[in-house]
């Protein structure tokens, strides 16, 4: 699956999150290329160290909730006022207090649904394979290893130089692997 002409990805393996964060910060200063990290548990501050903005998942939930309440309340109003107006015990046709419980429930339903869809779309999951799984020993990324991956893109950074830089860190990685993209 190797594409011609692309630089190999360099994966540095760490045994703890702190050296990973330190390494990410110093690699980022040198602007070697695109950085990603794989860890067995959420590491606070890692996303910032990698130079990314933390995502805001709440907008999906809010959008879903608003969509749900508009949909449900609108549907009920359309049905009870226009499509199928029916007088039950002299109650007004637009008896909105009766609509609140289902409207809220459907709003929450769509909030959760949008959140799940948003999560899948933004993370690109589900996915059958990813180049990261080619890193030797990557199954330990779900157990006790922390991987920092660098894809050298800038012309001044070749793979050997990145490796030298990583080895010279105060907390050097336990191992360095090269993976074909």
């Amino acid at each position: 699956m190797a594409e011609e002409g692309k630089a190999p990805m360099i994966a540095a393996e760490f045994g703890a999150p702190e050296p990973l964060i330190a390494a990410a910060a110093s690699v980022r200063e040198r602007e070697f290329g695109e950085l990603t990290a794989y860890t067995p548990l959420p590491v606070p501050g890692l996303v910032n160290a990698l130079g990314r903005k933390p995502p805001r998942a709440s907008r999906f939930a809010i959008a879903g909730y608003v969509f749900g309440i508009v949909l449900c309340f609108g549907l009920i109003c359309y049905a009870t006022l226009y499509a199928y107006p029916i007088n039950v015990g002299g109650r007004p046709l637009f008896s909105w207090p009766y609509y609140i419980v289902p409207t809220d429930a459907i709003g929450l339903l769509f909030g959760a649904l949008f959140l799940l869809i948003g999560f899948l779309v933004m993370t690109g999951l589900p996915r059958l394979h990813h180049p990261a799984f080619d890193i030797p020993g990557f199954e330990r990324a779900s157990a006790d290893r922390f991987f920092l991956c660098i894809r050298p893109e800038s012309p001044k950074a070749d793979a050997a130089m990145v490796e030298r830089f990583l080895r010279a860190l105060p907390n050097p990685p336990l191992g360095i692997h090269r993976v074909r993209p």
Partner: protein
Amino acid sequence: MFGRNGRRESEHQENVGEIVSAIAITHPSWKLWWLALLGTGGLLGLLVICLAYLFERGVAVWGNNSFVVWALDIISYDWWMGIACGALLLSAVFLFHGRRGALSRLAQAVALPAGISAGIYPIIHLGRPWFFYWMFAYPNVMNMWPQFRSPLFWDETDIVGFLTVASIFWFLGMVPDFAVMRDHSEKLLRKRLYAIAALGWRGEASHWTRWSQSCRLLALLGVLISINVQWGSSLMYAVSLEPGWHDTLLPVDDIINSIFAGAGVIAVVTSMVRVVYPLRRMIDRDELEFLAWVLLALGIASAFLYATDFFFTAFGGNSFQRDALVHRLTGSLSWTFWMMVGAAQIPVHVLWFRRARRSAGTLFVLGLLVMAGVWGDRAMSILGPLHHDFLPSSVHPWHATFWSIGTWLGTVGIFLAIYLLFLRYLPVVSIIQARQEARLSGRYADPPAAKSKRPGGRLRARVEAYRG
């Protein structure tokens, strides 16, 4: 915290994943599990027989009559839904608490099967259950719409909403755990199945933040839908004309007692899992004590609500309400009231003693008592007004039948079947949360087993080492 001794702590991290995965992979206590599944199969068989008879003869086989139109069907529905809402709400609270990963997953796993057990009732209690889809608003050749002002429609949206939120909350929380189990599995089929469930999770940094945020948001949605369902159900009572179904205390009463029931089920499940599985390090006595305080607090809140109801009715209520109260305490169904007081509200006070709070056996028994007690509460609030209405002519007795009790036992079977499958194949404890807790507190110090090169290796030995 990591740094120099980082390697040492990372060993513990790996450990948590191994212990929890090992439960699904090596299946400790499998004899007990099969025995339980066999019993559950019996209950499910009973459910099939009861439903067949019900569909053949109609809802009168449950003993429902023209006055007591809702009997064990709605009592059981309310009871299950209370357990489901309480468990979902508590699991969200445990998640927000941040240090209760073990309890949170066990509680989440209660919510969905309890919701399903509740969800079959609104379908089977219809006169013609095969037309249950008429409750939904969908385009149809009859040009008809459902009656949106009817509690039947509210029930249906509540259940669908609840089940959606609960299942997404449960599933999304397990995705990284599935990845851990995928990497610990050695058999190809098992590995592939966990890999599919893990959605190709690879632990990327930005995925982690998104996952944590989504889980917390789903927990919040879970709290909101639980409150909606419980308050909605008290509104459903309030739109009828029966005495005792219009008090403004009812929504509070419903939500507190449902959380109480949920806590009872969580206590039962947690103490059982602690005894059966090698998880004593994760579900330790501090965990039990935390749960005990929750139970005690809810028991006091529940008793306080009963007392408030008594004082308001006795000193301020009208004569019909007073009559309903007297009937509740002394009438033919007074055993339901005394069941709540005697089985749930009084016994929880044993938890003032430290030894009781830290004993799995006490929590197990108390949890069962609380479940029974809240069942009594639901029976009291539904049967009481129905069989003892305003008019003397509407006073009519009600007796449970074999078929109504059989159906209820069958729904217990549904719950147990799903829960047993969860205990067998899914991560019983949130591996990720347990790791985070271990990182924060170093609680799982001194792992007894040696480090192995392959993550899946020597699991059985390690399970044995953790037992005890």
